[in-house]
């Protein structure tokens, strides 16, 4: 993928919604393309996270304690909490069929967070939206 293609993929991700083009380009420069075969682990529950993954093609199965929690398709992401707080992963994710992800390493993302308040704001909005969604899901 070219940097422009990476930036376009990142622009589709809810967590980066509304980021200025310069912020997206800077992230795209840091994003690595990673290919997984069917059944390969993308992240493993209990490990300290070293990256955030965005599904570009294929799909990921999110599993916690042997139970499937979600299936993620193109434009969806995983691993964002462990990147921010460097705590162990809460779930594992496995590729379903050949799957390509963009990977952002925690140290690279941290450097960008330091340099780019727009990126922090965008992640903050994304996490807050999920938090509200979870609490509404719970209360109704």
């Amino acid at each position, binding site marked *: 993928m070219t940097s422009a293609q990476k930036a376009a993929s990142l622009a589709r991700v809810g967590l980066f919604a509304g980021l200025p083009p310069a912020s997206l380009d800077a992230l795209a420069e840091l994003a690595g393309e990673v290919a997984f075969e069917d059944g390969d682990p993308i992240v493993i529950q209990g490990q300290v996270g070293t990256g955030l993954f965005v599904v570009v093609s294929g799909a990921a199965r999110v599993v916690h304690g042997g139970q499937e929690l979600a299936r993620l398709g193109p434009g969806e992401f995983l691993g964002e909490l462990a990147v921010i707080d460097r705590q162990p992963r*809460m779930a594992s994710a496995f590729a379903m069929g050949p799957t390509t992800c963009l990977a952002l390493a925690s140290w690279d993302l941290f450097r960008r*967070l330091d340099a780019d308040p727009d990126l922090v704001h965008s992640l*903050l909005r994304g996490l*807050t939206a*999920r*938090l*509200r969604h979870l609490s509404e899901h*719970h209360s109704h």
Partner: protein
Amino acid sequence: MAGTEEMIDELSGLALFADLARPELAGVVHTLDEEWYPDGQRILREGLSGTGFYVLLEGEVSVRLGEQEVARLRRGAYFGEAAILLGELPGADVVAVGRVRVVNLAGPALKDFLMRHPNVMFRILQEQTRRLRGAIQWRR
């Protein structure tokens, strides 16, 4: 009403502002309004507009969905950010327990405030991550 120097001292003791040097804190103090609420008063009302970002300095607040308390917040905690960040109405009632003192920032001013103080925004991002992990674990 606390004077500027006293308020700087007070805010510097809160985790949210721990990364700010004194001159930056002085700027923060001038942006915030100090408010008091009597026991039982609703500070935020679920579903009603008129939002603000609040940091709790004295007393406790009860976060309520209907009749049910879903969280109890203490000194140093903040609330009201979700509705502002997401452009939605408050998702819960926030009620004073005992006499409550807060500093308050009007909703429309929050984004500008966070962009000018990225360290504060990053602290909030970390706290949202912690809350999100709690909410996810709680559901399983």
